[in-house]
C-alpha cells in the first residue's frame, strides 16, 4: 500500500477519505429522503436527485479507488488495468442500457443472428 506520510490536521488521508465517504453517503440518503430542501419550500426535482446520486457516486467511487485501493500511488499500468474494462462498461451502458428502447426484438440484425430460431421455436 502506498505510504501517506502527510497528515492533515493530525490525521492521514485514509481517515479524511473515510469521513468524506460517510458525509457524502448521508448527503445521498438526504437527497432521496427529503422531498423539499430542509427549511425551505424548494422542491428537490427528479433531475436534481439524478445529479446528486451520480455526482456523489463519482466522488465516492474516486475516493475508494484512488485512496483506499491506493491507485493514486500506483504506477500507470495498474491504473490502466483498472480503467480498461470501463470502456466496455460504457459500451454496454450505451449499447444495451440506453439504446434500442423497442426491446430485444428491435435490436439490429447484426446483433440477432438466426433470430428466427428464438421466435419460431
Amino acid at each position, binding site marked *: 500500500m502506498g505510504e501517506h506520510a502527510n497528515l492533515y490536521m493530525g490525521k492521514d488521508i485514509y481517515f479524511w477519505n473515510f469521513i468524506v465517504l460517510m458525509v457524502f453517503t448521508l448527503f445521498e440518503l438526504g437527497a432521496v429522503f427529503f422531498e423539499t430542501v430542509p427549511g425551505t419550500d424548494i422542491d428537490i426535482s427528479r433531475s436534481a436527485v439524478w445529479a446528486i446520486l451520480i455526482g456523489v457516486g463519482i466522488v465516492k467511487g474516486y475516493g475508494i479507488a484512488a485512496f483506499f485501493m491506493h491507485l493514486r500511488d500506483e504506477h500507470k499500468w495498474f491504473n490502466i488495468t483498472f480503467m480498461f474494462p470501463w470502456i466496455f462498461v460504457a459500451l454496454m451502458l450505451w449499447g444495451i*442500457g440506453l439504446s434500442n428502447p423497442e426491446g430485444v426484438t428491435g435490436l439490429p440484425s447484426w446483433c440477432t443472428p438466426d433470430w428466427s430460431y428464438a421466435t419460431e421455436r
Partner: protein
Amino acid sequence: MSGHGNDVANSTWLRAIMMAGLILTIGVAGFAVLGVGIADQKHHTWEDEHHHYDDAKKEWQDAVAAGTISGEDHDTELYIAKEEAHNDEVAAHLSYLTYRVAGMTMLFLTAGYAAFIGLGGFLNASKPKADDHGDDHGHGDGYGDDHHGSASPIIFAFGIMVFLMGLPDFIVACKALLDDTVVAELGMLGVSVSGLLIIVIAVSNWWFEDLPFIGHGEQIATSYPFEGDHIRKVGLWVFIMSEIMVFATFFSSYLRMRTEWCTKWAFENSDGGFEGCQSSDDWVLTASDYLRPGGAKIDGLGNSVGDFWTLLPGGINTFALIISSYTIVLALKTAKNANWEAPKGIMGKLMPTRKAAVRNYLIATLMLGSLFIVLKLVEWSHLVAEGFTIGTVQGSIFYIATGAHGLHVFIGLVIMLYLVFKADTIGFDEDNAQGIEYFGLYWHFVDLAWVVIFPAFYLY
C-alpha cells in the same frame, strides 16, 4: 502460492477448530435470542394484530353489507380503522420477520463460517508434518523448496463447477425443506454437496499453503509492464477487471429495462409519453418504490409504504461497508507499522499489542460484513412479504444483482475469517502484510460495487 517461512505446528490448526466452536456458539446464542426468544414474542404480537385486523375488516364488511356505508368510500371511520389495523398487522409481521430472519441468518452464517474454518483446521491438523523444512529460509510447506504453483485455485474452481452442476436440484431440495408442497429427494442434494466439499478441501489446502508465509519468497513479475511487481497483486487487479465486467452486465441490463419501465418518477416527468401507461395502476414498481420515502407502493390509506425505517437496513449497510473498508485499511496500516505503539485509554486495552490490534481490526471488519449479510436478508424478507418477489422482471434483476453482490461479500467474509485466524496465530507484520493488502483490494472493490448498486436499486 508456496508457503515460505516458519513451520506451523499441527496443533496450531486445532485452534481453528476452537475458533469454529466459538463462532458457532455465538451464532446459536444469536439465534436463540433473536430468532427464537424475541421472534416468538413478535409472533404473538403479529397474531394479535391479525385478529384485530380480522375484526375490523368484518365490522367494515358488515356495515357495507347492511348498506350503512359505501364500499367505495375510503373516508369512513370503519374503512380507516380497517386499513390502520391492516397496517399494524403488516408492521407486526415485518417486525417478526426482522428478528426471525436475523436470528436464522446469524445461525446459517456462523454455521458456514464454522464449517470452513473448522473443517479446514481439522483437515490441516490431520496432515502429516512436513519433513523438508530446515534450509536457510525455513521452507515448511512439505512440497519441496522450489517455487511452485498451487493446485488449490483450480481444485476450488472445479468444486464450484460441480456445485453449479447440481444447483437446480439443490435449490428444489432446499425449497422442499421449507415448503411441504414441494417434493424432493435427499439425493438431489448430492452433486452440490459434493461440490461444496471439494470447495472446502481446496480452501483448506490453500490456507495450509499460505499460513506459513511470513514474507519471504513472494513471486515477482519479471516482464514489462509489471516488472518488479508482485504477481499476486497483478493477478488480483486482473481479477478485479473481470469483476467490473460482471457487475456492468447487471447494471446495463437493469438500465436497459429501467428506461422502458413506466415508473412513478418516469410517468410524472414524461408528460404522458409512456404508451399504455395512463394512471398509477399501470406503474411498474421497483424495489425503491417499496423502500424509499415517497415511493410508488402505497397502502390502503394512500400513504407510501417506504419510509425512514424501510430504507434503514440499506442505509446501515452502506455505512457498514464504508466503515469496514476503513477498518481493513487500519489493519493494514497497523501491520505495516514496525514502530506501532499501543494507544492510550480503552483502545489500548482493546489493542495492547500490534498483533492484537491487527486481529481486532480484522474482527471488526468481519462483524461489519456479517451485519451487512444479516440486514440484507432481513430487507429481502420484508420485500418478499410485501409482494416484491423474484417472479417479476424488476424483482429478478434486483435480487440477482444485489444477491451477486451479497455473495461477493460472503466470499470475502470467508477469506477474512482465515485472515483473522492467521492474525491470531502467525500474525501479520511489515513483511507479510500482503495478505491483508490484496484482500483489502477485493474488499474495497465490493464496496465500490455497492456505491453503484445502492443508489441505482435502492434510491432511484
